[in-house]
């Protein structure tokens, strides 16, 4: 069973994403801060990380950079959740090391399928 690390500080949205993913059959581990995310990425070794950008301590991009720096072999796919405030939000995410991105609000019907693609 694939394990997904979800990094999201908003409780409601975290519940939403966890619900969708668990119904799809994935195991979900959650982090609510960037620093926790970096720690859990190392400890839990998830198959995919879903990273919200706005986080209370270090932001999602910084967390991504640190995770990438700590990876010894192989890259865990990291998908960013962006708010699309500026045109280059997406470019910044990719530059920080993200594999892809979603723009909030996510589409509940297609989200699970899109996630599956990253896990192939």
């Amino acid at each position, binding site marked *: 069973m694939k394990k997904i690390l979800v990094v999201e500080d908003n409780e409601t949205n975290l519940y939403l994403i966890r619900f969708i993913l668990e119904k799809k059959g994935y195991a979900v581990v959650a982090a609510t801060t960037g620093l926790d995310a970096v720690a859990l990425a190392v400890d839990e070794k998830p198959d995919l990380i879903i990273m919200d950008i706005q986080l209370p301590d270090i932001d999602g991009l910084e967390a991504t950079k640190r995770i990438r720096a700590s990876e010894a072999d192989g890259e865990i796919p990291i998908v960013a959740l962006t708010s699309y405030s*500026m*045109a280059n939000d997406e470019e910044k995410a990719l530059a920080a090391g993200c594999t892809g991105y979603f723009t909030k609000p996510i589409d509940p019907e297609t989200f699970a399928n899109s996630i599956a693609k990253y896990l192939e």
Partner: protein
Amino acid sequence: MDFFVRKRSIFSLGTIFVVILVTSFFAIDTLRLQKYDGIRINLSGRERMLSQKMTKEILLYNLGVVSEDAVLSTVRVFDTTLIALKDGGDAPLDLSMTEFEAIPEMENKEIKEQLEEVMTSWSTFKQKIESVLENNDASSVNYIIDNNTELLDEMDAAVVMMQHNAEERIPRFYWLIALGILLSVLILIVAITKAARRKYVKQLEQANIRLQEIDRLKSIFLASMSHELRTPLNSIIGFTGILLQGISGALGDEQKKQLTMVKVSGQHLLDLINDLLDVSKIEAGKAEVSVEEFALADVANEVTEAISPAANKKELDVVKEVQDEIVLLSDRRRVKQVLTNLVSNAVKFTDHGQVTITGKQLENKQVEFEVSDTGIGMKEKEMKRLFQPFQQIDESLTKKQEGTGLGLYLCKKIVDLLHGEIRAESEYGTGSTFTVTLPLRHRSEKRRVSEEDPGS
């Protein structure tokens, strides 16, 4: 005027004071020299006369009419006066040498040289006179007779020179005063101008700092607005989506119906937020254009696919006539945004018939695409407000359409951003046509300096 208070202006005022001081000094000196000019010309004129008097006296001495003392007295006056004129000293004012006036050395080189020449001639002349008084030799007398005119002429030349000198000094005097005044005024003007300029520059710098701060705050505002608004929307759209899929449990028909309304409202809210943020970004000058090559036909296909459910529902035909070869170098997402808006408007305001999308390349390196419909059309006065924000063509309340009211305004802003033009033609009751012209290859302007994105 706070000009007089600043430290720097004291320097300028000091300089002006010095200029006035120097000018006054030269002016007073000029006046002093004027005074001596008069005396010298007077004395020089007398020397001319004395040269003739001496000649006459020598001849009269020969005839025994005039005494030796008389001649010597005249000689002494001439001699003393000449020396005083040339080298400076006490000059006798009267022929009996009782009153004297101290005059300075002749400062004009030319005149002094001329007086030297006079002195040379005079030395010889004096010798001859002394010779006559001693020996009464005829050759000396003849010399005096022959050369006294020369002495006279040389002295005359000196007088003329002195007169010219005096005359010249007067205009020089006036010029000096004028220069002094001009210089003072100039320094004053320059100093005042510099002070004003410094103040202006400082104001500009402060204004610039304020503007940069405002700009920075705008960026922060847009970034946080986007984030704050999307977060709750995520859960609204997300959870209604899940519920409607039945994943959280089976739903009754009425529950499905109501949840659908919530979902549609959420979607509408999202459209509003997206449009508002887009407009805000463009108006704040923070919108960026990401340029790529793409085929217009591909975009048209995507748009028609997306609109087909709505079009099918109303049994409208959507016809595409876009040449495949048209390749644009521009912002694909925004072009698609404009086309989507125009096509969905067309579908919205048409009840039967068709919506046509055409695209063609113009000769002047431009692309033109049109969206026309057989809908209700617009009246002339509605056309006037067409591209303004928050306008909707809803004359009759029954036909009130949903929408953000920002659609066409945003389209115009985007088309402007891409250096293009948008216009509309319509006939009430028949239909409308919206035409967009864009350059084939987008040329971007200089990017803004403030690219900092504090939001992410």
